[in-house]
């Protein structure tokens, strides 16, 4: 057969490979163009649905359009604003903390008074069957945040019960709920700090000053990023600690260590030099 002779030729093989790649790339390009709009629409629907979950009640604006960028400890975060008759009644934004196996990304809705409307976990890679109880489909745990604010419970009670706080942990998984509690608390602190800008109520004259304040705040938050390497260490220390009791002890130390800054006055941040936050971290990295 003619094809047999042809198939053995180098030029045929080159042509074949080239045309297969061209055809498949073409198919992918066409498929990408046809599905793009639908995929974006689905993503927008997802976003809208998750916004609606943490934002009960009726609002009269399009949240997806009414956004503002706020400088947060881990980079800019988009704040969605829900208005009634032009006044911002609530805001929704993302916040994240390091969990057991990776970042736990939460979305939270906060009223203009600083009260939590709801929290949902958007993305996580926690252990199935243990850490995934933060999903509302698997446990009611996440609803415990509704109605809470920075004043209720008190700042030092913003922790899981094991650390002396008010939130339940799960049997066999403490790191995950701890990460969610931390993420939510950091979110509330961000709201408290950036409230005028989030609500769009800063006065013209103040705008400049508050922007400066914002910058200073974010450099100050630079120290709060201290928390992050610490938190990154946690999964590792916790990995060994899951079954053993001793490791847990160390974790509690880590956590109390990183809770202290929040108890201190803001000047505490400014005065403490870099070595303070670098040293224990490095020591721990070597230990592990």
């Amino acid at each position, binding site marked *: 057969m003619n094809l047999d002779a042809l198939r053995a030729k180098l030029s045929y093989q080159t042509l074949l490979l080239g045309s297969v790649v061209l055809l*498949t790339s073409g198919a992918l390009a066409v498929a990408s163009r046809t599905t793009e709009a639908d995929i974006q629409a*689905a993503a927008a629907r997802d976003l809208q649905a998750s916004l609606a979950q943490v934002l009960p009640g009726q609002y009269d604006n399009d949240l997806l359009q009414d956004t503002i960028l706020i400088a947060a400890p881990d980079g800019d975060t988009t704040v969605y604003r829900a208005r009634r008759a032009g006044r911002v009644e609530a805001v929704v934004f993302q916040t994240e903390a390091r969990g057991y196996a990776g970042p736990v990304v939460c979305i939270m809705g906060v009223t203009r008074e600083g009260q939590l409307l709801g929290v949902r976990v958007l993305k996580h890679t926690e252990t*199935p*069957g243990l850490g995934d109880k933060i999903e509302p489909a698997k446990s009611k745990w996440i609803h415990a945040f509704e109605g809470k604010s920075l004043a209720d419970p008190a700042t030092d009670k913003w922790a899981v019960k094991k650390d002396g706080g008010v939130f339940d942990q799960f049997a066999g998984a403490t790191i995950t709920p701890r990460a969610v509690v931390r993420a939510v608390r950091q979110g509330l602190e961000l709201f408290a700090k950036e409230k005028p800008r989030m609500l769009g109520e800063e006065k013209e004259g103040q705008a400049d000053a508050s922007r400066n304040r914002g910058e200073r705040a974010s450099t100050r938050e630079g120290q709060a990023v201290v928390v992050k390497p610490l938190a990154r260490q946690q999964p590792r220390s916790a990995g060994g600690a899951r079954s053993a009791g001793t490791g847990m002890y160390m974790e509690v130390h880590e956590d109390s260590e990183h809770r202290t800054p929040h108890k201190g006055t803001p000047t505490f941040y400014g005065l403490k030099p870099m070595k303070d936050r670098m040293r224990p971290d490095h020591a721990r990295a070597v230990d592990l």
Partner: protein
Amino acid sequence: MSYASIAKDGLWDNNVVFAQMLALCPTLAVTGSATNGLGMGLATTAVLLASNVLISAVRHLVSEEVRIPVYIVLIATLVTLVDMGLNAWAHELYKVLGLFIALIVVNCAILGRAESFASKSPVAESAADGLMMGLGFTAALVAIGGVREILGSGTLFANAHLLLGQSFAFLELTLIPEYRGYLLMILPPGGFLVVGFLLAGKRLLDRRLAARHAAAASLSLAPSP
């Protein structure tokens, strides 16, 4: 090759996981629960069927020397198409299966079937082979996932409604109430353990069956002379 032997091959004799020992990476990764195993199995079956048909259809055009890159490109394209299509038009399903679909690309069982069966057989038989191999793979994943889930968290088919829809919620069983869980089984080591024990069990069963067949054969032979 008859369809019956294709089916027997795919489901039992030449099972992807328990006989060919292929695709162990996705197998160990997703079988923390029976539902996840089922999702991965079904998604793989769909891709395996499509890739077998496609490769069988172009088998006369593809020359020996460049067949591997051609197959890989075709399989990767198929997986990407399935991924995009599901994301756009079956978004709810995609949210459950999305993680598994990307993993299918690295499933060497698909390339294995393309190479050893679809590239040498007519389209209809290749389709049957893809379907049966896929179902055998699904059965293996559900078995491994089921054992791990029962031992690890005391449930079976938990959250099946997320995958199959509300009408399959009856599948969700809590076998051991108030069970505190056995973490090892859900973590990767549990996957290795369960695969090992199930594999040993299958071998044992096969040996028993072979012995019985041999006995039956010698019995039927005995009276004849």
